[in-house]
């Protein structure tokens, strides 16, 4: 592809390139080239490096400026089945992602709250919530998070997130919930 030189140009900011095509046999001699003016060579500013795509995680300095609530939102809750404290596959995935984030932010200390839906009794649910919080904690520890960063507490069914009386609300309440306490 050939780009043609613009003659007599004052707006000489463009860079022109002459690229050679694959040579083809030509039956006639090329016409004599037009007189080539002295090309104007302009030194360009270096092109700024492209803006990196924003990473999904914040830098260490950034969380220092945020509220604890905001930082907490980076740690997602893990959900459980009714009357169960064992970790489902989706819960393990969530906790693994949390662990990755926590490793990138080693100054963060946090509490895992265990919660239950309203259908069990209040006292039993306090015990079940305790198991849920600790199940999440133990999994994080097994992924390399220092246990000293983690406190656990059970709220049973005392502090529900969703207040409906249906499975949709109940499922949201059966959780290990993360609250950052130091950053």
């Amino acid at each position: 592809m050939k780009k043609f030189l613009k003659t007599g140009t004052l707006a000489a900011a463009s860079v022109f390139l002459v690229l050679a095509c694959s040579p083809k046999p030509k039956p006639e001699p090329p016409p004599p080239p037009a007189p080539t003016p002295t090309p104007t060579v302009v030194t360009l500013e270096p092109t700024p490096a492209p803006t990196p795509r924003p990473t999904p995680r914040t830098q260490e300095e950034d969380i220092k400026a945020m509220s604890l609530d905001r930082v907490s939102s980076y740690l997602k809750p893990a959900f459980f089945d009714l009357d169960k404290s064992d970790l489902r596959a989706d819960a393990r995935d969530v906790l693994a992602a949390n662990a990755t984030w926590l490793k990138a932010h080693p100054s963060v200390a946090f509490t895992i709250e265990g919660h239950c839906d309203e259908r069990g009794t209040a006292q039993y649910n306090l015990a079940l919530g305790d198991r849920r919080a600790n199940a999440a904690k133990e999994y994080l520890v097994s992924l390399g998070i220092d246990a000293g960063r983690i406190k656990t507490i059970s709220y049973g069914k005392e502090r529900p997130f969703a207040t409906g009386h249906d499975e949709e609300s109940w499922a949201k309440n059966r959780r290990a919930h993360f609250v950052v306490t130091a950053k």
Partner: protein
Amino acid sequence: MKRPNAIRIVAALALAAAARAGAQPSTSAPTPGTGPVAPPVSSLPSQVVVDILGTKGARIPLAIPVTIAALTPELQKGAVDPFFTTLNDDLSGSRIFLVTDPALYPRGLRPPRTREEGDQWKASSAQYLLDTRLAAEPAGPGCETPPCVAVEAQLWDLGTLQPILGRKYTGEMRAARRIAHTLANDLTRQFTGKPGPFLTKIAFVSDRDEPRVKEIYTMDFDGESQRRITFSHTLSLAPDWSPDGKRIAYQSYEKDSPGVFLIGRDGSDKKRIPLPTQLNASPSFSPDGKTIAFCGSVKGNPEIYTVQTDGSGLKRLTENVAIDSTPRWSPNGRELAFTSNRQGTPQIYMMDLEGANVRRVTLAGNWNDEAAFSPDGGRIAFACRNEGDFQICVMDLGSGRTLQISEGPGAHENPTWSPDGSKVAWEVTRGSSTQIAVANSDGSNMRIVTSAGNNFSPAWIKTLE
């Protein structure tokens, strides 16, 4: 308001057979019987006969005409109304008495002086007449702060036309309800040998004060005199009275770390029991008042522990990967009931104070929880569920026979017995509202006694006061 007088009869044999066949808890024919039940025996014959306080099933028909008093508004409103309403509620709610229909009472004839006059009272089917009179009194012994009242009560046997109980009570006008409760207790003692529950208190949990906060309250068993005890400004839960009625143990989330606390019944002298465990839920006082059982957790495994009230002598009783929660001390001081899902679903178990001799108590249904012993230790009330919402069941521990005593919609949980064994209170949740219900131990005469905010976790005092 008088309820229809329905006498319920238990078919003891049929229900015992049904219970042994593993049938669902019955929704009909609740167990009568408030009096001492025979202590559990390891092997009982197939038939259990329940005896209501020795009177073999019949309630005592009693006529209670309105209290006679001067017709001044202050006296009527300030004294007669609260006195008579309370007296009527106490006696007509009781399963010992059958208050007869006032529409059938004669006019006057108080007291009846002739056989004919007595017969006019008996036209309402009454066998006894409780005649009360109330008058203003000057201050004096028995009442230091006027206005004061005196109540004279006379119980007449309508068969013999003889007075069989005479009382005079003096007190402040604002104590009119208390006078009625005292009279109801005295009447109960006259026929059964021990007072009724009418002066007892219930501790409970309420969220009425602040959002996301629950505090411990106390009230009269009928819902009067509700009084806030804790000011924790966090979650304070699961009260349990000391056996002498002077203190309340409870769980609280002060400093974001739940602990077991003790507090005086008037809210004074709060102490936290030092514990190395987490969770620290469901405290339960031993019958001698020295030891607290509770649900503690180390590394996320809830177990039953006991500890002395000063924090010494911590001992772990259960050792199990399952959830072990909600310990409740037996009145015999030698065993604990608790809830465990070790065999798959939450069920009620018993064990001794070493954590040995564990045996499963509830066999039917897929969730049985929150066992509360009757004061004589012969029965447990508990939250029972197969499908749907929790109900309140009562099981005779000797025979295993189990009956449902709650009815109606809602989730019924957390039962507690009155110290004379005649009544049970529990919490009932309908929609988003939870309130405390009080009923006779057969489920009859259920009344909701709270209304401000939501109210949970009733714990009946263990003394008859």
